């Protein structure tokens, strides 16, 4: 078993972790650990960050060789700060992630990714090797391609169980190994159960939604998830376009910045473009409606909801906004809303 490296944000390139001989361990905000984050951080931080910190404070984590943080938003910055307090002995690296996409920020991020790679190799006393990185990227890209295929099947037809199955694959890649996820993915490309009708096609997006059981609930509530955009689904498995640049780190920077449309990253040439992207993905996946799952206090998302709402309204696509803490536990409260939404959409 490889030693593990913890991380929390979808902008963390897993291939770099594996190339350095570590296993990735994404810390999901899911824990029975008592609510202690408030001792270290302000209460007005998103439950994602608070729960991850709760896990650290309660030692509800496997042994980690180090932590990779990305200053993707204010909450994430504060999480990195608090980690120093909660786990003073853990090696930590904090990457600066630009908020906008342009040539300068791609240069900068590629240097940050390079710094991350070198640090990881050093942590494992391994000689730095671009070859290893390239090998891992090749494997990761195979996984990304399989995930795309499964997503394609999902958007065309309703196959019961496929959404939760896909989530299991992605979670394996996030918390175990790309190899294992790849095997699972190749077995999933043929759906196990036949296609069915009678469900409302819905595109779902938001910050995180990682519990596979959530997708089973959605199906129970008459939803056919045609596609999803969370940093625990498609945003996480970012295909690295190795042809984008001769420098492998710049290729990664380009791929992660451009393909992973988290609300915190903006296309400065087209303010509000995230709304267009959501509309486009909803349409491409043949969804009749869109549901967003937001976390309380998540400014990067909440502040963009008005634009997204407007853009969907313009296209007459019904939109439902749900607020929760991204766990199964909070989902029960949403049943009536989700069912009413699917009743409204029809099939």
């Amino acid at each position: 078993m490889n030693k593990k490296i913890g991380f929390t944000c979808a902008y963390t390139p897993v291939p770099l972790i594996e190339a350095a001989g570590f296993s990735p361990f994404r810390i999901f905000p899911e824990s029975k650990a008592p609510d202690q984050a408030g001792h270290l951080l302000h209460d007005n931080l998103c439950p994602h960050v608070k729960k991850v910190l709760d896990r650290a404070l309660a030692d509800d984590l496997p042994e980690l060789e180090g932590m990779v943080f990305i200053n993707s938003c204010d909450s994430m910055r504060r999480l990195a700060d608090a980690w120093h307090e909660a786990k003073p002995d853990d090696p930590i690296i904090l990457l600066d992630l630009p908020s906008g996409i342009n040539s300068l920020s791609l240069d900068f991020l590629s240097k940050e990714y390079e710094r991350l790679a070198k640090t990881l190799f050093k942590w494992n006393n391994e000689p730095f090797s671009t070859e290893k990185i390239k090998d891992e990227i090749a494997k990761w890209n195979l996984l990304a391609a399989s995930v795309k295929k499964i997503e394609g099947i999902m958007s065309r037809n309703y196959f019961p169980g496929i959404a939760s199955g896909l989530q299991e694959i992605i979670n394996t890649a996030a918390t175990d190994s790309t190899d294992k996820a790849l095997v699972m993915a190749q077995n999933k490309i043929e759906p196990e159960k036949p296609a069915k009708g009678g469900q409302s096609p819905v595109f779902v997006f938001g910050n995180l939604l990682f519990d596979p059981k959530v997708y089973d609930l959605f199906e129970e509530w008459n939803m056919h998830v045609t596609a999803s955009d969370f940093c625990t689904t498609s945003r996480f498995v970012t295909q690295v376009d190795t042809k984008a640049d001769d420098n492998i780190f710049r290729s990664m920077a380009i791929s992660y910045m451009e393909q992973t449309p988290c609300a915190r990253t903006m296309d400065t040439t087209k303010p509000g473009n995230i709304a267009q992207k959501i509309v486009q993905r909803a349409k491409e996946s043949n969804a009749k409606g869109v549901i967003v799952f937001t976390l309380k206090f998540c400014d990067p998302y909440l502040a963009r909801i008005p634009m997204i709402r407007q853009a969907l309204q313009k296209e007459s696509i019904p939109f439902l906004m749900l607020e929760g803490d991204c766990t199964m536990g909070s989902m029960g409260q949403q049943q009536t809303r989700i069912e009413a939404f699917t009743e409204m959409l029809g099939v």
Partner: protein
Amino acid sequence: MIFLGIDIGSLSCDAVLIDEEKNILASSVILTGAKNIESIARAKKNVLDAAGIMEKDIRSIISTGYGRARVKEKDAAVTEITCHAKGIKHVIPETRILIDIGGQDSKVMRLDPDGNVVDFAMNDKCAAGTGRFLEAMARALEVDITELGDLDKGATSDLVLSSMCTVFAESEVISLIACGTEQKEIAKGLNRSIAARTNSLVKRVAKNIDGLTVSMSGGVARNKGVVKAISESMNLEKINTPETPDIIGALGAAIIAFEKIHG
């Protein structure tokens, strides 16, 4: 053929029987209580007895309300949002905005001319602005809930309750009483604060309500003071309320039962 709709709400368990022509044969409103299985049976028996009909004559049953899954004999469960919309379409067909304030949540629906829900907003985070909140306030004012609706008559001040949390509002009401504020002013203040909350829910589904017929269902629609305050805060001449607002959900469920069979 007979169709039954049952609405198991947080406070009341309502049943409606309709016939082939969608005529209401009987309806019943009882308290849900702690044992909802028993209330469901009782509500059903009430309407069957009142209409003089045997259980086997019921062609189809649709349940709704937050306890909709608990009705064993249902043919399907449908949310109260869809059911209230169906129900109001039957009694006030021109409705475009429907406000349903029940015991523990409030909902606003925007309807198209055919009575289909095209958007909705729901507040169920806390008891604030719901029937249960009003009941607590009635207790603080030492009146019966049925008297609360007329209590604000003749109020002249523009008092608004600042806290909407049941606990805080209750102590605010008590301290207002202690300061000698008249009952009617307090009641008006209460209604105004509920109206403000409801209004912001309405705005989520319709930025502009000009020319839209607004109706209200759910038990709180029986509270004239609240209805009036809501219409004032929305600058409306009037808000329509059906004669029996608490059975609209069950009526809608019965109509859906009918439509499932008749397409």
